[in-house]
């Protein structure tokens, strides 16, 4: 469900439960066979505010998506940034996204947690280093996207006991835990050294694991949903086809 758009600002809210998948287990000796994997439900909210969206895509320029890791109590997961990158390139292969680790290593030490630019104006300080300016020019970098946030476990309850005996093995019990993901993406126009867009994705969901002989995981794809939400918004910004 999308909210109204005013001055380039959009809010979308969604609640959905991914389609269940049945996974056939295998029978070996006395081990039980069939396992059913279900997916839990997730609530997702996406806020977007853009200023100077490219009308015809980014052409042959490139984009880099980087995670913020300067805070002491959390860091943006490499997996999440990789997920967002893959989400975009899978839907528009014309968008060239530089791999995060490759970018950080090729520009060491200017994008370490201690030295990474925190504001678009800091790019000017970077460009005063001639080798850095040459490297960035060679990459044809147009947009630098900073992703800041993390996925955390919010609560957990229940207990489970598993045992192995001469007659077989099994588990009994029930466990539940909640996850919440909160990420913000800030888009910098590298050429103009200005911020041109900001998106926020918040998702939450509860996972369950009942066990009657066999544990039945019902996992809410919280981080995956956040990745999809942010990836879709960035795709709309960067791509001429979406």
């Amino acid at each position, binding site marked *: 469900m999308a909210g109204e758009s005013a001055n380039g600002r959009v809010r979308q809210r969604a609640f959905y439960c991914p389609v269940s998948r049945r996974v056939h287990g295998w029978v070996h000796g006395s081990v039980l066979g069939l396992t059913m994997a279900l997916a839990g439900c997730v609530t997702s909210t996406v806020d977007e505010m853009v200023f100077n969206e490219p009308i015809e895509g980014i052409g042959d320029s490139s984009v880099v998506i980087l995670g913020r890791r300067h805070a002491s109590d959390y860091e943006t*997961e490499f997996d999440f940034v990789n997920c967002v990158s893959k989400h975009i390139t899978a839907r528009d292969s014309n968008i060239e996204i530089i791999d995060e680790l490759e970018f950080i290593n090729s520009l060491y030490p200017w994008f370490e947690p201690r030295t990474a630019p925190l504001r678009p104006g800091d790019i000017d300080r970077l460009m005063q280093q001639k080798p850095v300016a040459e490297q960035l020019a060679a990459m044809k970098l147009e947009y630098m996207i900073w992703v800041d946030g993390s996925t955390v476990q919010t609560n957990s309850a229940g207990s489970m006991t598993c045992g192995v005996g001469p007659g077989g093995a099994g588990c009994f019990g029930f466990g539940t835990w909640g996850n919440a993901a909160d990420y913000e993406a800030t888009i910098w126009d590298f050429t103009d050294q200005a911020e041109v867009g900001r998106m926020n994705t918040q998702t939450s969901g509860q996972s369950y694991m009942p066990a009657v002989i066999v544990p039945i995981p019902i996992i809410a794809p919280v981080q995956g949903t956040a990745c999809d939400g942010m990836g879709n918004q960035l795709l709309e910004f960067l791509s001429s086809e979406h």
Partner: protein
Amino acid sequence: MKGNFPPPLLEPLPVTIGVWYEPDFLAHEFYDEAKGRSDSTWIVKTGEAQVQMWSQLLRGMFDTIVPSENKPSPEQVSDAVAAVLVARVGELQYAIPAHTNVKVYEIWMRYAFELVSTNGDPIAEWTMTAYGKTPTAFLRSDEAAVNLAAVVALRDAGAHFITSFEKVPEVAQWLENQQMDALDKEPSTAL
């Protein structure tokens, strides 16, 4: 300990520096003994990785690096280098989830640096900190996680050294003197 340390991207300083690694620095390690049945004993040997990182970093930071096999002293006077850099790990602290109940492995190090003349006279002494952390991950052992945090800390040490070296007052003065000496040695061209 194993890690990937990329070369720094910057214009090298126009000086030739010697570097001497003390035996304690070469053999640096830290460990944690298991205190219960659920804990594990692990040891992380950082010496080799330290030398790898610092050698890579200093090669990119200065025109020429000359490894020194002995501590600079008045008995050894060499014109090959302008000065000798000596590094040592002054202090190391670590934290693992078993200690803190926080799902993060952390390493904090304090380095002590000396820049000495080729006959051992001190030019500058300063300390510098480095910090690295890594979150917990499914099926990753304490030793592997601490290794990863140590790699992050070494990268941070390199970044901190590059951005702070010229800000040490005695080092800044020494670099200025080196530049003036280099200008004096250039042949003058008369019109």
